[in-house]
């Protein structure tokens, strides 16, 4: 499967999850996402775990709000009828399942390409060269910023300006950490853009690297998955 095919498939499944209005239609969409996820082998366990970890706290919080505090579903409140906790629980289940389907399909889509480095993945995408270059530069600068955060945080803790644990001092001086990080990365960016990259011809090398791998057209497997996803989307719309 090509990265573009997987992304289109993922978007179609997400579309299906969004338009699904009841548990049966959502279950169909989720089943398709799970079958697709099996294609990533044992990584499906990782995708499931990640999705549960993302959605479970949200579901708990929604349960607290709708079942615990409000005690009814929004539809009941909108209709002016007395709310029931059972309806609120069903509402929370529907929303949580929808969010789980979205989170899972995002993970399942990208875990299929977990063997690739981010650069290899971006190379194989069919998208404008400028967009590819921006993504590669951003990924590179994220690494730079994360290192800058580590260094600046250690320095500010050593200087007693911020603390490791939550504290009023962090609230007061937290922006100093952001400012320190920003100044560090801007200085690095100036140095790279003005001196380092032109000397090493970095941008030309990036262009060459990104253009080197000719993106593959959609394969028959891509199209097959897309057709199935479109079918589930149509089913979800039809069951509304």
């Amino acid at each position, binding site marked *: 499967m090509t990265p573009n095919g997987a992304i289109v498939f993922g978007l179609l499944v997400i579309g299906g999850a*969004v338009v699904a209005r009841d548990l049966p239609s959502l279950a169909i969409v989720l089943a398709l996402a799970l079958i697709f996820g099996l294609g990533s082998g044992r990584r499906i366990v990782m995708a499931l775990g990640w999705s549960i970890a*993302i959605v479970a706290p949200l579901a708990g919080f*929604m349960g607290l709000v709708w079942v615990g505090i409000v005690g009814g579903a929004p539809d009941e409140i909108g209709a002016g009828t007395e709310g029931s906790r059972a309806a609120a629980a069903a509402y929370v289940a529907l929303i949580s399942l929808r969010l789980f389907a*979205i989170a899972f399909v995002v993970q399942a889509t990208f875990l299929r390409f977990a063997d690739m480095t981010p650069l290899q993945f971006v190379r194989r995408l069919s998208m404008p060269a400028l967009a590819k*270059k*921006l993504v590669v530069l*951003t990924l590179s600068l994220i690494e730079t910023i*994360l290192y800058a955060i580590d260094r600046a945080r250690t320095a500010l803790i050593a200087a007693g300006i911020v603390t490791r644990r939550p504290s009023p001092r962090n609230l007061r001086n937290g922006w100093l950490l*952001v400012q320190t990080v*920003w100044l560090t990365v801007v200085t690095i960016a100036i140095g790279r853009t003005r001196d380092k990259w032109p000397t090493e011809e970095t941008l030309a090398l990036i262009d060459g690297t990104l253009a080197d791998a000719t993106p593959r057209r959609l394969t028959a497997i891509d199209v097959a998955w897309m057709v199935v996803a479109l079918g589930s989307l149509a089913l979800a719309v039809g069951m509304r």
Partner: protein
Amino acid sequence: MFTTPRLVAIALCAALNFSIGNIVYLIKLPIYLDSVGTILCALLLLPDRTAAVVCAFIAGFIGIVLTGLLINPFLPWFAFSVLAIALVSALLTGRGTGTFRARPLPAGPFAAKVVFYGVITGIVSAVVSAPVVIYLFGGVTGSGSALVVAYFVKTGNFLWDATLRSGLIIEPIDKTLQVLLAALLYRATPKDFLAMLRPTAQPSVT
């Protein structure tokens, strides 16, 4: 429009949007600062307003897509909010760039402009985000604002009204903080970098 320094500015601001969550987590702040890079990108690219809108949106969009893939898969749904924030930042907040960089700092006008632009950004963001919060999350996003939604629903408001009212209370506070941070970072940005972003000597890469 896309000179190399501007591409770097977009990437920096996208990376800042992505990484600032890391900073907030590290110093355990009870706030979200997910649009600082977007606002800052618009400020950096002014006075070229078209470039400011386009580049700020691209920075914000790349930020939410990367965050969506790695941390929070629901963030990309707020792409229209990113566009709205980019527009407000370039067309309104950008009017304060003179005050933001003035030396010595004019405390009164600086604070007044930050609050004014922050509140407007927050109101626009709340209105644009409300449909996503209602449809995708059913009104509850997991943040403290959900308790405000619950309170409004409990007191007889429809979900749409409750979510919008909650957003109109929470978002201006959050966005004022973000405009403040973006203004401070803009103020701290070296002149050299701002000069590189002007559309002069650098050849376009497109």
